[in-house]
């Protein structure tokens, strides 16, 4: 599904060049649950942003189901992200002024109508947030907020779900629950890549990759 070959990312700050990621090659199969671990600044978030088409690599190739992602025009690139990728962020990335239902609907195309509301309710029931659908994020717990973010990823068309430290802002017990929920995403045909520095979180994944100083230390290391 994903073939990343010799990808690198450098940032220019005036005359200073910072290499955030270098020579990263990665293969991910459809329906896989992959965890990428590493310390802060190891480049794992950069890798996630490149995989999620939020950022473009400086070099290397990125193929997604045979599509050369780097060769896409800006418009195609955005469309690709919309159609294939969804995110779960550490800070939940919910719009505070929107209700839970409206936040979930962001990932759906077009205006909020009855079929979409039904779909949202189904997903909300699955994730046990149906009782807070009409509440603002500030009035629900952190766990419920992250479930909302997961629901949003679930209703989106994207088959690849990228999770950036999904339990980073939660206590251990809630974190474990959230990871169980994320694991169930696979049942809905999603491929999951989780970036974390928490071994407990990574342990849920099929495969774990380690990053250090912008490089992948282990390749295709089966758990």
């Amino acid at each position, binding site marked *: 599904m994903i073939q990343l070959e010799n990808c690198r990312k450098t940032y220019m700050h005036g005359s200073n060049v910072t290499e955030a990621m270098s020579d990263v090659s990665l293969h991910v199969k459809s329906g896989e649950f992959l965890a990428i671990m590493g310390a802060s600044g190891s480049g794992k978030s950069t890798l996630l*942003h490149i995989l*999620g088409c*939020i*950022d473009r690599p400086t070099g290397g190739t990125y193929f997604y189901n045979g599509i050369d992602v780097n060769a896409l025009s*800006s*418009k195609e690139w*955005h*469309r690709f*992200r*919309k*159609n294939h990728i*969804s*995110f779960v*962020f550490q*800070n939940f*990335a*919910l*719009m505070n*002024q*929107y209700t839970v239902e*409206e936040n979930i609907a*962001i*990932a759906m195309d*077009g*205006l909020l109508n009855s079929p979409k509301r039904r779909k949202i309710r189904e997903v909300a029931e699955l994730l046990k947030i149906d009782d807070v659908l009409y509440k603002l994020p500030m009035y629900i717990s952190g766990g419920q907020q992250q479930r909302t973010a997961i629901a*949003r990823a679930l209703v*989106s068309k994207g088959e690849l779900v990228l999770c950036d430290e999904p339990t980073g802002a939660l206590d251990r017990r809630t974190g474990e629950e959230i990871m169980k929920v994320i694991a169930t995403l696979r049942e809905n045909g999603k491929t999951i890549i989780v970036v974390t520095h928490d071994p407990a979180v990574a342990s849920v994944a099929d495969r774990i990759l380690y990053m250090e100083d912008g490089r992948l230390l282990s390749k295709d290391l089966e758990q």
Partner: protein
Amino acid sequence: MRLLQLIGISYDFFCKRKWMRLFLSILCGFSLFLSAYAMLQILYGYSAIGGYADAISGDKGQILMITEDSIMDSPEMQERWSNFLRFLKNEVPSSGAFAEYLGGFPELEDNELYRAVNSRQQQIAVLREYPSASKIIIVDCGILSLGKLKLSFENGQSVPYEGDKKVMLVGTAYEEILSVGMTLTWNGEQYVVGGFLPKGGKWPSDQGITSPDQSCIPMDYCFLAFNQNLKTTTAFGYRSTFVLPDGKKEITRQRVWEIADAFKIGITVKTVDEYIQDSKALVRDSMREMINICLFTLFISSFLNIVSKLMNVMMQKRDYGILYAFGYTAGEIKLIVFFEEILFSIWSIIFCILNCRLFGRILSIPWTMQLRYIKTHFLWGMSGTLLLMEGVALAAIYVFLGRKKPVDLLKD
């Protein structure tokens, strides 16, 4: 459909966070008010020193109008003068300072300086106050005040305006007479003079030809002469008769000459009073100073405007980041921001008008933002300024958003 969705999101964004938006709108509205006020003052300043007036209306400059409070005594007189002023405005487009709206003559708009005065001293004071006026209209002074004006000249006092300045005096008499003007030859020069129409009389249809039984000429003829740079003066009297340029009509009355004499002293004698020069210089200097202050105010208010709009965007940059992460393109996000800015601007302009209503009075500009008192070119100038400010603010927002990476937008 997509566009509708984007507009819907803009509207949603706009409607949420009410209190913060209210605060920012008030801030932005106040900055727009300051800009509008500063811009009006700058235009006023330029007009007062002549540059703007010359630029936009050629040889047609400011009008200073002096009249009596008593003119507004009856509704009938008010209506009569309203018609007169409407006509005047069409015929003599002015540019320059603004009306001092003292509770009468709502038809008097922006550029005419209007003062209602009851005494000679007040008249002189008003004339001194506006030495830059290039056209002066003194209304109804013939019967009520001009005699007093003559006395003042005999006492050595002079009215500080230049001898070659166009002056029109239009006389009225209560009840029976409507004010008109006509030309006459006086000492070999042509003048526009006041004339009268008896009650129930009709205006002659042919300009410049006076009906023998009505002893008058149409008002538009008076203005025609006035606009053709004829020297003008006035003569007043009750059903008086005048010598017309073609010499065909002649009816005289002693009162006419008395007043004409008085007027000759006041108008045709070239004034070399140093006070005039001093006061003109004073006006120019004070105007320049005011313009500089206003330019500074404009700069500050533009800055405030941009800051408030940027704050509005920064407040929800994370939301834009979320939209970006879920497939909205940079162009679509810019469109959302654009629509939102339009809504925000409408709200700001409403607050701007409220500010004008509130602070306009404190700043002694009761006409501020009353559109009927702002002539078209000022309106265009103002609209242009506000649009420019909006454009600059939008450009600043786009630069701000453009410099941010989508990843940065997602951060708290």
